[in-house]
């Protein structure tokens, strides 16, 4: 991410030469349309998707009741919540390891800050610059009983590790079968405990290789669990669940939320179940299904649509995009009869296609309108075009409107 502007170094420019500032106005590389009502910057301070008070945080239905009554909360952003989860896992389970490129100094997104000094460089360390090495190494460590959390610096750079994930992590248990090993009964070779974390998604200026959201490349692969948290509270609980999970988990962290999304997070440790969607807002006329950053877009679009169109929308966060919670989604559609699926990555063969097809199979007779998909277009993320490419509030609003007016 670019750092905030600081005053221009005047000395550099000299007196006699034209300066950057005196003969034309500064054109920021990015601006928002001035009369916009829908496509305005997301307001994370007021969004109903974040827990703005301790009470909101502690009343979350996924939290164990003991924790609800005793835990204190802290306001954390997403990278701090990830850090808190990692710190908890490292301190309570000596099998947990954390490594990747630039992890030791805290990581380029600060998720591993202070963890190397706290837990030692045997357990939290920098790797050489090789994603296939990082993931392959993690698989080996997991297969021999550790719980490695491997960081890929950007989801865009996971592809060198694709073979390791698709052919190895996903298939290890299946190919090894089951043996009796005496003490603990039947066992198999698997790489449960393996979590591959990666920052993903658009930030407004990441272009081709700092914007990708490649979840659907992994949701096609049975054996991998693919998770994308929407907020700090969610990230902490889902990451701890991922580390406990007996299956390898791909944990995609929406990097635009690292700093933008701040909410109250319980200080105590907790897990949030994988493969369970969450209804963020009940409604009766249309179901909006999404995950990760676009949920905020959806929430803003829903507010506007409910006001303008006198409708009520249900908003569902898939949280785990594979294997996903089909029941929650189908039950919702059976109730509302209308569905809009929203995600950032390309529409073609995306998660939306799977959700739409499942709805069509499982709730066809209840459908009042075709399932709408709002997603990235079938192209790469060009630097200057991102705001036209990723789903925005106007597009989601329009899809809701079209669906209810069908």
């Amino acid at each position, binding site marked *: 991410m670019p750092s905030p*502007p600081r005053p221009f170094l005047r000395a550099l420019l000299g007196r006699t030469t034209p300066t950057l500032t005196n003969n034309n106005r500064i054109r920021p590389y990015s601006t928002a349309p001035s009369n916009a009502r829908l496509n305005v910057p997301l307001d994370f301070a007021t969004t109903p998707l974040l827990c703005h008070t301790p009470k909101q945080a502690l009343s979350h239905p996924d939290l164990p009741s003991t924790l609800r009554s005793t835990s204190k909360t802290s306001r954390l952003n997403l990278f701090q919540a990830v850090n808190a989860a990692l710190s908890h896992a490292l301190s309570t389970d000596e099998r947990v390891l954390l490594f990747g490129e630039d992890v030791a100094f805290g990581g380029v997104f600060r998720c591993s800050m202070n963890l190397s000094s706290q837990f030692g460089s045997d357990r939290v360390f920098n790797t050489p610059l090789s994603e296939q090495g990082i993931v392959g190494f993690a698989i080996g460590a997991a297969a021999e009983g550790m719980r490695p959390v491997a960081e890929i610096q950007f989801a865009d750079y996971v592809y060198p590790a694709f073979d390791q994930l698709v052919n190895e992590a996903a298939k290890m248990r299946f190919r090894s079968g089951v043996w009796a090993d005496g003490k603990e009964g039947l066992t198999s070779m698997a790489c449960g405990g393996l979590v591959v974390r990666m920052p993903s998604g658009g930030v407004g200026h990441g272009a*081709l290789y700092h914007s990708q959201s490649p979840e659907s490349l992994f949701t096609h692969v049975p054996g991998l669990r693919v998770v994308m948290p929407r907020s700090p509270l969610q990230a902490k609980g889902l990451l701890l669940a991922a580390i406990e999970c007996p299956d390898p988990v791909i944990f995609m962290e929406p990097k635009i939320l690292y700093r933008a999304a701040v909410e109250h997070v319980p200080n105590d440790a907790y897990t949030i179940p994988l493969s369970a969607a969450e209804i963020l807002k009940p409604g009766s006329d249309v179901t909006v299904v999404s995950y990760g950053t676009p949920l905020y877009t959806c929430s803003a679009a829903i507010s506007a649509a409910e006001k303008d169109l006198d409708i009520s929308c249900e908003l569902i966060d898939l949280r785990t995009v594979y294997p996903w919670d089909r029941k929650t989604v189908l039950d919702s559609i059976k109730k509302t009869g209308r569905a809009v699926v929203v995600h950032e990555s390309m529409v073609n063969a995306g998660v939306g296609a799977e959700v739409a097809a499942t709805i069509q199979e499982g709730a066809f007779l209840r459908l009042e309108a075709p399932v709408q998909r709002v997603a990235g277009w079938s192209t790469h993320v060009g630097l200057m075009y991102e705001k036209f490419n990723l789903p925005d509030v106007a597009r989601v609003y329009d899809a809701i409107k079209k669906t209810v007016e069908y």
Partner: protein
Amino acid sequence: MSLRDVVRRATPRGLRPRKPTSPCTAQRFSPQWQRWSSISQRPGSDHVHFPGAVNSKFTTTLDYERPSEKPAMPTYRYMDQDGAIVDKNREPIDISDEEAIKMYKDMLTVSIMDLIMFDAQRQGRLSFYMVSAGEEGIAVGSAAALNPSDVIFAQYRETGVFQQRGFSLDEFMSQLFANCKDYGQGRNMPVHYGSRKHNIHTISSPLATQIPHAAGAAYALKLQAAQNPNEEPRIVACYFGEGAASEGDFHAALNIAATRNCPVVFICRNNGYAISTPTLEQYRGDGIASRGVGYGIETIRVDGNDIFAVHEVTKEARRRALDGGGKPILIEAMSYRVSHHSTSDDSFAYRAKVEVEDWKRRDNPITRLRKHLESKGAWNEDKEKEARSSIRKDVLAAFNRAEKEKRPALRNMMEGVYAELTEEQEAQIRQLRDIIERYPDEYDVSEFEGGLDGLGVK
């Protein structure tokens, strides 16, 4: 449209397969594939005859190779820190004062542009920038030793290569501001330059991916040279960092280049860091150079702050790369990353300020060449002042021109994925136009060339 048309449209001119000038017989180019002769062990032989290591002598001493006990590969230099020629007995390097001054000004241009653009990023005028501070000599010195027709693949800290090849300030600025004159059509992050005209492939952020491309491209050039004996043979030069050299692609590239005898010069910039990761955590061998030896590749290590040494080894590497039907060469150019990794990085989170200050004071390719030229009387304070101020003026003028330009037409968001837009993409463009038309206040298309019509559908 026939498949041939598709291929033709998809292939830029220079990349189209050339018609061979003579029949494509295997003998014209290389001997027929031969079976590896594997004569089994002769009785009493003192040599290994295993096919995997044909010249290894037998030994009765049980000894492991201990790399840590071997002396490190030496670092070649021509000038010392003060710009004085180290070996007074050697023949002076074959570079005229004018050529040296051109190299000097190229480095200066890069470093002045870097300062201006770094600060422009801080002002929010562009989204990102990366400087080459401390490494200008590697880029400019090596590029100057190549032929302009040699093909280049770069990482991202080789602005000097573009500058040396004549990529203009307007071309730099158009890319940085992602305006309608940018060859990348506003698609890439800043500093991801590329230019077919200058024979430099477009920079791609994923590290090391360009290294095997370079091997393949070199093989293409080698075959083309054999098929067109009248054309001057060309090589490929490929730049990358010591961090990138940890990727599998690096290893794959060196090995395939060696086995296919590709005329490619691999140029590793070893600047001590990959973002925060110091070389000590990147590898335990003797730098990157030792790996070349492992792949059977002729290798040299050079002082990257010594632009003449870089020039000399690159020139010789080019000669060797074309010698005897072609072969890869590895150059490891040593330097220090003086700057932060990029505008997104604050390197004082992982290295001490004094370390950086110390390096800056001790050595730098620009001051070294300046001292050298001054000692010869080819440069002085007045010339320095005049060069700096005119470069600065030119950079700022180009800056201002580029910042005023429109963004490329919106259609470029979808074009270029395939040679032709797909039916699905055409429909998506219509959908996008429709939504912008129905929600005009929600979108600002005025910055883009042609506004909404730049989408190209009615």
